[in-house]
């Protein structure tokens, strides 16, 4: 990747560089790079098959952006943005990666990176779940829950409800039982909420495939649905990138919704503070640790959006008998190795290789459960546990909370 010379007599077209230099929403400050190497020292992927974030910056600056666009490493990147976080000069390598992915023709994007966005756009969710099937799943889960939580309801498309809940489509598809935890939490909090029959998707992979057009379109479709129902708050349930793609996307595409977006972890904390739940932490006896999802922690914080760093800890204190911090944590945390669309791009070997530091970090905690308030992190950490045969396993925060709630 590095051994070609630059032809000085030919000035290349550099659309990627131009976007990163000129578009205010995507400004990457590439020319401020002083080659200090901090980015590569904190990057889980750096060193794997020649991936070097610092080199990507140089290549784009030198007009060799095509080499970056054609390089599969940009799709192996988990988008954790540690590089951007430690950069002393504010170079936004994350922006570079997103826009470089967007420059790759759709049919040349690896794995399901692009397909996922198109399904989201065409079907309202990326798992192609039709409304009938969705409503059946909701009802089936509600019925099963009724034994434990008598009188539990799941209001569908309730006009004027305070909270509009989003759901990561992996839940109905692969872990429908986890829906019960969410129902139980909203029910016990006596929240005025609704589950939409369409545009409930709580992910947005367009941010990861770099498909800005579809990203904006899907956001606008969902905004229209929330406004149609007249909800005051979009309660973004545990999906880090979906939350970030929403709040950051609204700003990037200048979308001004008539409602607020709140990460559900902040709602848990608010409801606990208000004394809405009777909690019994002894129902979560196993030693637990907390994984801060990159998107809802570091990326939200450094870009000025509400993060869940403190709220997640407040909830952990209330619902677990015992839990320990992992290190590094909070905005310095290490990626689960499943972020950035890496889970759907089909680079499992790469993920397992650069997940090693995550494994070491979790091993040092001695915990049995790794609480991840993010469906992607849940799968990322689950894959690492399975691959490296580790004694810990992931768990969502809604499950810890739902277990602790005494009805």
């Amino acid at each position: 990747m590095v051994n070609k010379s630059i032809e000085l007599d030919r000035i290349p077209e550099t659309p990627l560089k131009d976007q990163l230099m000129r578009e205010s929403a995507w400004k990457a400050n590439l020319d401020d790079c002083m080659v200090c190497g901090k980015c590569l020292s904190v990057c889980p992927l750096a060193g794997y098959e020649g991936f070097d974030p610092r080199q990507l910056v140089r290549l784009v600056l030198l007009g060799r952006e095509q080499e970056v666009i054609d390089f599969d490493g940009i799709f192996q990147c988990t988008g954790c943005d540690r590089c951007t976080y430690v950069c002393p000069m504010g170079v936004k390598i994350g922006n570079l990666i997103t826009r470089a992915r967007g420059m790759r023709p759709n049919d040349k994007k690896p794995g399901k990176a692009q397909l996922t966005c198109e399904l989201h756009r065409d079907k309202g969710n990326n798992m192609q779940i039709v409304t009938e099937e969705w409503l059946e799943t909701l009802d089936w889960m509600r019925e099963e829950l009724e034994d434990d939580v008598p009188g539990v309801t799941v209001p569908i498309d309730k006009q004027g409800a305070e909270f509009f809940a989003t759901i990561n489509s992996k839940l109905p598809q692969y872990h429908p039982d986890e829906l019960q935890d969410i129902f139980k939490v909203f029910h016990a909090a006596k929240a005025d909420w609704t589950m939409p029959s369409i545009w409930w998707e709580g992910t947005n992979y367009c941010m990861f495939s770099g498909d800005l057009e579809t990203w904006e379109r899907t956001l606008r479709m969902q905004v229209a649905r929330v406004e149609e129902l007249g909800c005051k708050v979009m309660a973004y349930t545990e999906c880090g990138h979906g939350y970030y793609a929403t709040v950051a996307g609204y700003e990037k595409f200048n979308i001004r919704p008539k409602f607020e977006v709140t990460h559900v972890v902040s709602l848990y904390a608010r409801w606990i503070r208000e004394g809405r739940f009777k909690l019994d932490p002894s129902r979560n006896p196993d030693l637990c640790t907390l994984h801060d999802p990159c998107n809802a922690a570091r990326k939200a914080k450094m870009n000025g959006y509400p993060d869940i760093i403190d709220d997640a800890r407040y909830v952990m204190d209330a619902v677990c008998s015992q839990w320990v911090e992992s290190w590094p944590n909070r905005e310095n945390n290490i990626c689960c190795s499943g972020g950035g669309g890496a889970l759907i791009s089909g680079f499992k070997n790469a993920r397992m290789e650069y997940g090693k530091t995550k494994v070491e970090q979790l091993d040092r905690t001695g915990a049995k459960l790794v609480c991840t308030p993010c469906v992607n992190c849940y799968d990322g950490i689950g894959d690492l546990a399975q691959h490296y045969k580790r004694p810990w396993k992931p768990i969502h925060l809604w499950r810890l909370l739902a277990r602790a709630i005494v009805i």
Partner: protein
Amino acid sequence: MAAEIELPGLTEEVCMNGDGDILVVGGGVAGLTAAETLADFGWRVLLLEKQGHLGGHSHHWACMATEACNRCSACAVCDRLRRVTSDARIRIRTQARLVTLEGSDGAFIAGIEPAGNSDSVCRSHPNFVLTAAESVPVAKVVLATGFTPFDPSELPLLNYERFGAVMSTVDVDDLILQNRLTEFITQQENRVAFIQCVGSRDRERGRDYCSQFCCKTSIRLARKLLFERPDLQITIYYIDLQVNRKEFRTFFSEMQGKIRFVQGTPAEILPAEQGPGLRVKVFNPETNQIGYETHDRVVLAVGQTPNAGTRRLAERLNLAVGPDGFLALAEPGRGARSSRPGVYLAGACARPSDMADSCLQAMAVAAEIGAPVNVTATVRPLLAIGSY
């Protein structure tokens, strides 16, 4: 020469009035130099020091001599101290601070009071301690309040507080000063790394400046360590080396074969995969690949930051502070005047400076103030200490 220097608003009365004609705040290497030079010009000087000792950071700086002097300037402060403490024209007050500054250029009234810290007092000069508040008329004020070394615990990924094997250049210097360098590393260990620019050159965290001295400090420390333990394998991770005086270049060239210099400064220090030691991810110039390197000790070359009290001081004295948090010069690069006429800045309170630069800046302040009117000065030749 002195006749050509303009002395705005300075009158004979002021010169002959009061207990001290010029107030110098800060008894580090810059303040000592300013006091000494101004006294040589014929001024009477009141020198304030917040601590119980004079000398500032330079007083705690260990001599870096190996088989020969490495010109670190640490000893120069001793000469200055001897001369300042024995000069009848310089009145010294330790554990004292400047609280208010009324009036204007040529006719200030400085309010000084005991600093109220419990720092131990210099045994040779216990009578220097200020015991009661005073109001002192002064013509000019020189601020030389110095800096604070960067606290690496502000960068959690470096794990400074977590791992005993991660130290700062200040910590290693303290070991040398206390003659405990053998405790730095055990006989079984020999891999040492220095990381440059810790707390410097960080625009995102408000420190968009080079601290000027840390590259030279690390190279001298490395040489001192090698002198004690020739078997050490020392790596210096740098962004770009600021070894910018010609005398230092020779020293640097000599060290190039003995120390491994690697471009790129890791931002995260991890424990070794197994056993003791620390890991950093870097671009290895020998293999042309990114990978982990393991070291037994990692030394963080900390930069200079403004004192925590700089903003409060600036508010009390009505002075401007720069975006970097240091006191602001009225015209950077053109004199040592602060934003308030009659108040001058010397040394690291205005910009990161090494010892030699601090001395030169203090002398420049004295030259800018010039000699008092109607006083025959006994001028000693200006002498910069240390040549780099």
